[in-house]
């Protein structure tokens, strides 16, 4: 919201500098995000009076001008052809820095000195809309009554300072100059000076000219006035200057007045060309499906019942609260006008503006909420400007149709004790009442109760907390900068508690970090193509994805159901920039809908995923990482060949809990998937469900007494068919050993054609131990023979001979 400092001065006597006022507004809740100096590029530019023009002795296209700039004369060399003796022109002198970036220094033009430069409108940052002649191709010729030596910013009324104020949504009343002026009054304890609302009418009656019919609930109030014999012309410079400062293009007096009121009062208005209102009627209604309107931005929109319009007897003439139609707008031929000053429902305007992608000064204000009482004042103000500018004759009477109850001054009762408790500091009751009255909230105290009379615009004030905030923001929040003394008196002790899953995930993170992994963070939104890239089958439940209705881009259009995509992208990216030996992990969520379209919240499942792309890394190293991760849990699991479509089906495993739940998977990434991600090295990947793992009971330990007797080791190398698995062999060895089995470990796998086709040699270290005696070698030999026989019987295994 742009607020002009000069405009504020209409309502508050300000001697404080623009910068100081900005600072005070910020600390009281109206953050001034930027201070814009309208005269930023106008210093060292003055009004000059050209006294004499001579030809340049050396150059045909140049002239030498003697120019009076008040207390001195300067010489300016120019090539401009529209200057003449006696003309008043803007002269930029040494030190000036113009809007187009030109820095002014005295220069020599072929032996003739020039003290500066004449300026065009463009160089001063203005055009014809603001000042007549400012758009000509040449020097801006100023009016004959200009004063030589006057600063150009004063001559052209470009000496304002504008604040860009962040008005919070609870204060729609402050999207206006008067709203902010009230705040400035409260800050300094100054008196608010009311705007001029006075005007005179010329008799007759507005109802003879126009009738208004409100046919929709979305328009709680519609006011109108009729003006005839309009003298359509430029607004006076002071008015144009105000609009220009806040970035609104001056057009003509009628349109400018409506815009002026919009900015000053925060009330959007519209001016119709009366002669184009068919049936001399204004109807506020919802549009009919298929109706069309061409509006002031040149576009034509097709309307439907959701759009509120202002229509005449025949057709829509305005998209209500948003933008006017070209069919009835003010033009050079306009002689009679109807002013509209209405309240439209904020939801309706908001939805319509969004529907057509239109954001206007009017829709922006309506979308924030315009008070039901606001048109009363705004319309008076607009008519007083018409009267003041003498640009038309105002007919008696005002049209005022309202369905909603007009706001009255409300009374609320708040508690001094409660406010003091909310603030936690001592502010005397008298001080509170003073602050409230400066804010326009007349208040009085009776015992603990403070009764507040709320101005009709302050719909945001409802309870003790609201009043507490009003008091403290004016009193000054800096009292809290250094808190000391007692706190939390009368409060209770609470015991802190970590979140079990987060703590569990942290323990996994630490294990991985110790194993050389780096933690990554990835977006939980991705492209729907992730499912294809990962080769998910058509009936994979993870293809039921949640789609964002208004995505930022296709890449961020789908809520993820799979983790692997993100880490594979990370690996691909890192390889592409030349990073090597990648060990990454991520803790994140996948989101699985229960049904689509989404009717209830989806299941959010927390998972940990890891990926390794490193030369020499293999499946069994990955398996080691996985085992280390699972070791911290009480999970009892078995491995089965993985069904994950994106994993290499021969080099991957699913981790399956006792109850059959697939807790996670790990293995080598499928070669096609690697291709899909443009990765040309093997990637190993693992993923686990941390919701499941963290919900397991804590791991329990039951240790046994350490045996007094020594262990005995024997190495056995046996040759078996390729298809026999380690697990089968280990189990067979274990059961054949019986009671004296201690442990078995595969330490070598050897393949050679000499062993036979599809054969391999598996070398085991078998450890024996008895709990009640030292084992003799005869006993061990007997058991080893039993083991070999069993292996031969079950798997055709032979003791390796070579």
């Amino acid at each position, binding site marked *: 919201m742009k607020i002009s400092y000069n405009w504020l001065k209409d309502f508050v006597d300000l001697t404080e500098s623009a910068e100081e006022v900005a600072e005070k507004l910020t*600390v009281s*809740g109206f953050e001034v995000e930027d201070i814009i100096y309208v005269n930023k590029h106008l210093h060292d530019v003055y009004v000059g009076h050209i006294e004499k023009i001579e030809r340049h002795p050396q150059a045909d296209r140049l002239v030498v001008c003697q120019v009076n700039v008040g207390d001195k004369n300067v010489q300016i060399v120019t090539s401009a052809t529209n200057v003449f003796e006696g003309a008043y022109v803007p002269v930029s002198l040494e030190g000036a820095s113009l809007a187009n970036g030109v820095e002014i220094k005295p220069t020599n033009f072929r032996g003739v000195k020039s003290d500066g430069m004449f300026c065009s409108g463009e160089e001063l940052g203005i055009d014809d809309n603001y000042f007549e002649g400012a758009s000509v191709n040449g020097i801006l010729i100023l009016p004959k009554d200009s004063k030589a030596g006057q600063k150009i910013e004063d001559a052209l009324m470009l000496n304002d300072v504008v604040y860009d104020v962040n008005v919070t*949504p609870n204060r729609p009343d402050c999207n206006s100059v008067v709203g902010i002026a009230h705040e400035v009054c409260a800050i300094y304890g100054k008196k608010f000076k009311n705007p001029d609302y006075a005007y005179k009418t010329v008799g007759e009656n507005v109802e003879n000219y126009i009738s208004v019919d409100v046919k929709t609930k979305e328009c709680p109030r519609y006011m109108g006035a009729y003006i005839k014999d309009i003298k359509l012309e430029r607004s006076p410079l002071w008015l144009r200057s105000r609009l220009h400062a806040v970035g609104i293009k001056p057009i003509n007096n009628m349109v400018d007045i409506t815009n002026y009121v919009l900015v000053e009062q925060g009330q959007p208005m519209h001016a119709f060309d009366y002669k184009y209102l068919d049936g001399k009627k204004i109807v506020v209604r919802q549009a009919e499906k298929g109706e069309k309107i061409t509006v002031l931005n040149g576009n034509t929109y097709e309307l439907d019942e959701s759009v509120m319009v202002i229509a005449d007897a025949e057709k829509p003439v305005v998209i209500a609260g948003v933008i006017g139609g070209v069919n009835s707008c003010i033009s050079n031929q306009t002689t009679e006008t109807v002013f509209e000053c209405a309240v439209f429902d904020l*939801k309706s305007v908001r939805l319509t503006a969004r529907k057509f992608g239109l954001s206007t000064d009017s829709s922006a204000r309506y*979308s*924030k909420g315009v008070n039901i009482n606001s048109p009363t004042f705004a319309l008076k103000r607009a008519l007083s400007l018409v009267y003041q500018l003498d640009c038309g004759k105002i007919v008696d009477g005002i049209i005022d149709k309202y369905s909603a109850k007009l706001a009255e001054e409300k009374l609320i009762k708040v508690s001094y004790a409660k406010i003091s*408790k*909310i*603030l*936690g500091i001592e502010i005397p009751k008298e001080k509170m009442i003073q602050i409230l009255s400066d804010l326009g909230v007349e208040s009085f105290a009776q015992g603990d109760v403070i009764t507040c009379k709320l101005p009709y615009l302050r719909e945001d004030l*409802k*309870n*003790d*907390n*609201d009043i507490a*905030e009003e008091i*403290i*923001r004016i009193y000054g*929040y*800096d009292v*809290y*900068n*250094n808190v000391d003394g007692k706190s*939390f*008196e*009368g*409060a209770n002790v*609470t*015991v*802190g508690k*970590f*979140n079990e899953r*987060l703590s569990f995930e*942290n323990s996994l993170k*630490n294990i991985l*970090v*110790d194993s*050389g992994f*780096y*933690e990554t*963070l*990835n*977006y939980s*939104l991705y492209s729907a193509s992730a499912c294809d890239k990962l080769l998910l089958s058509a009936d994979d439940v993870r293809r039921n994805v*949640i*789609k*964002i*209705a*208004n995505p*930022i*881009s296709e890449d961020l259009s789908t*809520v993820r159901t799979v983790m692997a995509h993100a880490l594979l992208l990370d690996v691909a990216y*890192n390889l592409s*920039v030349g*990073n090597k030996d*990648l*060990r990454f992990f991520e803790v994140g969520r996948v*989101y699985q809908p229960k049904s689509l379209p989404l009717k209830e*919240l*989806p299941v959010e499942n927390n998972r940990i995923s890891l990926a390794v792309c490193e030369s020499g890394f293999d499946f069994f190293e990955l398996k080691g990482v996985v085992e280390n991760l699972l070791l911290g849990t009480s999970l009892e699991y078995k491995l089965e060949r993985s069904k994950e479509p994106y994993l290499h089906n021969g080099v991957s495993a699913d981790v399956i809990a006792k109850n059959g739940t697939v807790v996670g998977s790990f293995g080598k990434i499928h070669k096609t998937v690697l291709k899909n991600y443009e990765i040309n090295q093997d990637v190993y990947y693992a993923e686990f469900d941390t919701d499941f793992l963290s919900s397991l009971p804590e791991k329990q330990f039951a240790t046994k007494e350490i045996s007094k007797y020594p262990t005995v080791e024997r190495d056995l190398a046996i040759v078996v068919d390729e298809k026999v698995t380690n697990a089968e062999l280990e189990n067979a060895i274990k059961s054949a050993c019986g009671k004296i089995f201690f442990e078995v470990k595969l330490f070598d796998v050897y393949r050679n054609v000499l062993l036979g086709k599809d054969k391999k040699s598996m070398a085991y270290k078998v450890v024996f131990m008895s709990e009640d005696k030292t084992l003799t070698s005869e006993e061990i030999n007997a058991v080893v023979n039993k083991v070999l026989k069993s292996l031969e019987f079950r798997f055709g295994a032979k003791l390796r001979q070579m």
Partner: protein
Amino acid sequence: MKEKLKEILKNGLQKVEELVDLKALDEVRVKFLGKTGELTQILRGMKDVPAEERKEVGSIANNVRVKLEEAITNKLCELENAKLLADMEKEKVDITEPSKGTKKGALHPLTRFNNKFMQLCVEMGFTVIQTPEIETDYYNFEALNVPKNHPARDMQDSLYITDTILMRTHTSPAQVRAMETMKPPFKIVCPGRVYRNDNDSSHSPIFNQFEALVIDENIGLKDFMTMVKEMAVRLYGEDVKMRVRPSYFPFTEPSIEIDATCQMCKGKGCSLCKGTGFSEFFGGGIVNPVILEMSGIDSNKYSGFAFGPGIDRSVMVTNKIPNIKYLFRNDLRFLKQMK
């Protein structure tokens, strides 16, 4: 005879003294003490010594033997020790060569910040909770005093899924879920991801916040500030300074923005803090009683405060991270700097 023995002792001790290696030491031992050694020879000749002198000579000879043996043993120790030192000298390594074995990786800076902060919250009596990232309009907006079409919705550009379900735009729904399920007094904190329809050089569509809520009896702004100050001190050190500014959140009243000493410049003023020496720390305020009542908490008995900052910026500042996009880019060259 006595003279001979003295001679032997003198020679022997001198020989031992001159020795430099173990092999020569053995030779000396043989030369004097061996079966055919000089001293042995003398002792063998004892029978020729007159009986009255035999005792005295015997005693002298024995003394010579003990002294020589002692000298040899000492020398042996000395030489062995010298050899050990020489061997160890040969094993000397270049300690500046690189280390071996698996190198540690690193946690993401965000995790480290979160862990530190959660630790702090738990010590201060907070329970860490987690709530959904995909939320209903009710929890994300309505129960936080932001009805449909409320202008406050403009402050947060949302990513919608359906008319009533969206990606949460803040962690504040955790407040409502806590108030509905927990009995006051309580303190909760909920770290998590939030989503906005916003993606440019200084904004990420996904970022991280946490939400903290304290509901208790007799709670006011001063208590809030006391706790925040303690948090700032623990995170940034004793000499941190605070600054309070007014703000607006639909669910708190009064609402404030709290700045703390800019950690980039330590308060000296820099481009990040626009020369003010302060940067945004927490935003929050006193829980609007309307919210308490909506969630079934008696606002006459209980009051509270809520705050919930974005933490990405704090992570950036405390780790001097130059670009917010680094947080999600996962470039190893960046992550390695976080060890």
